[in-house]
């Protein structure tokens, strides 16, 4: 396209936009004329991507006006899933939805309305604001799988969670189940630069990933055994005297208890649990502890291991703490919330939700860390020290599987409406069959989407949402960092698409929230966020055009001035907050959700260990399967299996195979690779086939290759702290697809 477009022609404006296909939000320049985008390219002046765009970033123009996009409000006229729609106006859609929600609230209470979100690709604070004003505590995301439990556990221990890495001054980086080589392009670029200058990189991952291939040390642990590894690291660091005695003395409480507690967790103890040798464990722990300052970069794998997730996050946080790698130059920085601009939490109107409604939040009785009980305690502590609280949307949510169950069982109470925005729960939430049943059973389903996903196909209303290039964006790490990057919309939304902000606002106004939505446009709202920064700008766009980002001057070791945001104002190795909430104050070993040690019988039937959920190029979660310019690179799903295991199972490279757990089976093609343990298999996530019939019962082959058919959301398999469910470390079996077994009903 661009080859045939003269970008020097008269009348072209260059808009400072951003990519919106993951939440890195790389800077993009959009060439706009007469309200149309002619072309885009990476913004060379943007601080993170410096002109770079990954494969997804490059397809913005294909995404903008793709023939399969939803461009007008749709109302279901046929049976659910029949794909019979009537195009209606926004006015009609909003009126009818508001009327229905209001009826449900009258009959069943506000809590009978739930909302589901996906990756941070929407104005989440606006959804939260709507829900708070509406009176329901039952908003949720895939937050539980995506670093939010980590945020809350770490905040309980040392008062915030590191967002910012001072990598330039670092000597060692641990990527714990993180693969920026496939999921965080601006990050891996930085890492490779620094590695060339001597930064040591340790990758902990069952797979030999893009990132592992570049590491100094690769630890291919058994999927889900992160807790055992973290505990053994603590053991090594403490008993080999590799911790930071001054920091521990002055700024930590509970070191003695911790030392006593982890004595049992020697590397030899961890060996059979992690499948790593004691030497590997020692060597890696030494590499991190002895190359100070060091970093353990954020990553979401531990959020996805289920039962032992919370304890593993806790143990990992303690590794960082006892080595003094907290808020010091070159280490993981506790930025705290921004004191300078209005944070997302301050936009959420959390004080508007009555306490009795907060108490009704589904899952908060079982899982306290990312629901009101834990959140309110932590918010109280952080307000004391930082003056502000973490974003509630994300950090304080209903437990999604429990909401789906509530839809089906009406326990603890009926949930009648689900508003889905920026997610396709059938593919992206755990145990797809449960999710599917719930989506089919819920009385009222509304989806805000780009595409007619399987979820959208089951909806009563589908609303067209503005995407990349059509919306302004503020990037501030889930609203929890002290910096922000700002981008403007290149064009007004095409067709009848609208920003999700306007959906919530317009719906809110119809439900009597008018006074609480003073900002007519997203830009108005954003302007109110950045105005206190004092740049003297008259509008949000002016800020983007002239400043584009705000990075406050870095202050190291802020705890020396204000203390840590915990009850003792110190790092609580022995966590009083966790204890208060009824959880073990020290990280205590529990096995992975499914494992061969605790359940040898299960392991007999399902002898392989499964890991799912890792991102892979060129897709993002369950997105982009329609974009041919991406799809052609990997047009079929592939699972990784070691050639030795494959040989035993008579599986050849490229064969279709079934991967089966207790919960069901899916098929993907076999990719034979030495990059995975013979006892482990990895499946790609997100797969559906939008090119197929999208009507029931085909629904785009939504269960055929979808890794979440295999995952587990049983309460027992979830992390007791956060309710995070199990995507990794489950037991499975693999066998070849044959004509005969394909017909078997499963």
């Amino acid at each position: 396209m661009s080859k045939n477009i003269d970008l020097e022609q008269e009348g072209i404006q260059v808009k400072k936009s951003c990519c919106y296909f993951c939440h890195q939000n790389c800077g993009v320049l959009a060439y706009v004329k007469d309200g149309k985008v002619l072309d885009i390219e990476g913004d060379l002046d943007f601080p993170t991507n410096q002109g770079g765009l990954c494969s997804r970033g490059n397809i913005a123009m294909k995404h903008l006006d793709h023939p399969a996009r939803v461009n007008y409000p749709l109302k279901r006229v046929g049976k659910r899933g029949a794909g019979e729609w009537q195009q209606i106006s926004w006015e009609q859609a909003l009126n009818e939805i508001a009327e229905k929600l209001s009826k449900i609230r009258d009959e069943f209470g506000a809590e009978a309305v739930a909302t589901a979100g996906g990756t941070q690709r929407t104005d989440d604070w606006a959804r939260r604001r709507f829900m708070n004003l509406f009176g329901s505590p039952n908003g949720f995301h895939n937050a539980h799988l995506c670093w939010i439990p980590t945020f809350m556990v770490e905040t309980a221990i040392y008062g915030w969670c590191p967002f910012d890495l001072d990598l330039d001054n670092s000597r060692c980086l641990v990527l714990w189940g993180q693969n920026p080589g496939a999921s965080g392009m601006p990050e891996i670029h930085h890492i490779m630069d620094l590695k060339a200058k001597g930064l040591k990189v340790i990758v902990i991952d069952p797979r030999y990933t893009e990132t592992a291939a570049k590491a100094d040390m690769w630890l291919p642990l058994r999927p889900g055994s992160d807790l055992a590894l973290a505990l053994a690291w603590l053991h090594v660091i403490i008993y080999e005297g590799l911790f930071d005695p001054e920091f521990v003395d002055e700024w930590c409480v509970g070191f003695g208890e911790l030392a006593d507690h982890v004595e049992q967790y020697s590397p030899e103890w961890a060996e059979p649990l992690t499948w790593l040798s004691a030497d590997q464990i020692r060597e890696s722990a030494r590499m991190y502890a002895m190359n100070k300052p060091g970093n353990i970069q954020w990553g979401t794998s531990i959020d996805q291991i289920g039962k032992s997730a919370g304890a593993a996050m806790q143990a990992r946080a303690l590794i960082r703490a006892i080595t003094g790698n907290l808020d010091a130059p070159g280490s993981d920085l506790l930025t705290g919330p921004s004191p300078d601009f209005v944070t997302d939490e301050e936009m959420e109107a959390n004080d508007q939700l009555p306490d009795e409604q907060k108490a009704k939040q589904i899952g908060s009785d079982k899982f306290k860390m990312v629901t009101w009980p834990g959140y309110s305690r932590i918010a109280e502590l952080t307000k004391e020290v930082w003056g502000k609280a973490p974003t509630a949307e994300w950090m304080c949510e209903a437990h999604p599987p429990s909401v789906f169950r509530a839809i089906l069982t009406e326990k603890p109470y009926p949930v009648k409406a689900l508003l889905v925005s920026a997610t396709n729960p059938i593919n992206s939430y755990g145990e797809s069959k449960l999710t599917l049943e719930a989506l089919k059973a819920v009385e009222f389903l509304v989806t805000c989407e780009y595409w007619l996903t399987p979820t959208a196909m089951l909806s009563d209303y589908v609303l067209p949402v503005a995407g990349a290039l059509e919306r302004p964006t503020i990037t501030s790490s889930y609203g929890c960092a002290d910096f922000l990057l700002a981008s403007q919309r290149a064009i007004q939304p095409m067709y009848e698409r609208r920003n999700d902000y306007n959906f919530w606002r317009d719906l809110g106004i119809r439900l009597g929230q008018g006074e609480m939505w003073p900002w007519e446009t997203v830009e108005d709202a954003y302007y109110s966020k950045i105005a206190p920064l004092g740049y003297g700008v008259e509008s949000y766009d002016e800020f983007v055009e002239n400043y584009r980002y705000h990075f406050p001057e870095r202050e190291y070791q802020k705890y020396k001035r204000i203390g840590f945001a915990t009850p003792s104002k110190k790092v609580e190795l022995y966590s009083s907050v966790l204890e208060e909430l009824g959880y073990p104050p020290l990280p205590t070993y529990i096995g992975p959700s499914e494992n061969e040690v605790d359940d040898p019988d299960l392991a007999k039937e399902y002898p392989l260990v499964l890991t799912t959920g890792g991102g892979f190029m060129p897709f993002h979660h369950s997105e982009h399967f329609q974009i041919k310019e991406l799809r052609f690179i990997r047009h079929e799903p592939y699972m990784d299996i070691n050639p030795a295991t494959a040989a035993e199972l008579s599986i050849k490279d490229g064969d279709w195979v079934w991967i089966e757990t207790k919960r069901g089976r899916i098929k993907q093609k076999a990719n034979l690779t030495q990059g995975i343990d013979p006892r482990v298999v990895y499946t790609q996530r997100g797969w559906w086939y939008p090119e197929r019939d999208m009507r029931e019962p085909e629904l785009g082959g939504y269960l055929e290759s979808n890794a979440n058919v295999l995952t587990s959301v049983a309460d027992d398999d979830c992390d007791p702290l956060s309710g995070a469910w199990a995507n990794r470390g489950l037991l499975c079996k693999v066998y070849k697809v044959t004509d005969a077994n394909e017909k078997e009903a499963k």
Partner: protein
Amino acid sequence: MARYAMILDTRRCIGCHSCTVACKVHNDLPLEMIYNPVTTIGPTGVFPNVHMMNLPLLCMHCGNPPCVDACPTGASQQSPEGIVFIEEKKCISCKACIMACPYGARVPNHEKGTVQKCDFCKERVHVGKLPYCVQTCHQKARIFGDMEDETSEVYKLVNSSHPVRLLGELGTEPYAFYICESEVKL
């Protein structure tokens, strides 16, 4: 006169396919036409002692391009700056150049009835911009520049990092230079 060249730093390439997609989208290429695939070698070895390398490809803009000699119509040409390109109106798609190129860098466009190839985004380069595949690479695994300019990064890297040329033994003198980890042989 400039002599354009590209360095491919396989130590940095992570196989994300951004360059392939950027090229396809910006050059408006049909799906089957790929100027610059990225292949993966490995993981080689036996778990857990494995190695993996990604190989970003493109037209090598050879010093001695067999495709130009093979072209019966004179459509395939080389500019004084070393850019091998096709003058589309002269091409009849006899595929002689496709067959002659040892790197698979030329692809037929069945819609147009011509052959097409990477031309280092010469329109961009002539106005001082980088080729799309270079600009889009987060990893800076593709480095573009002028070999005649002793201050350029490509000149310095070619003369300091012992790059290798793909199928160098064929005498095509590629101006795409590959930097590999020392233990790797291409």
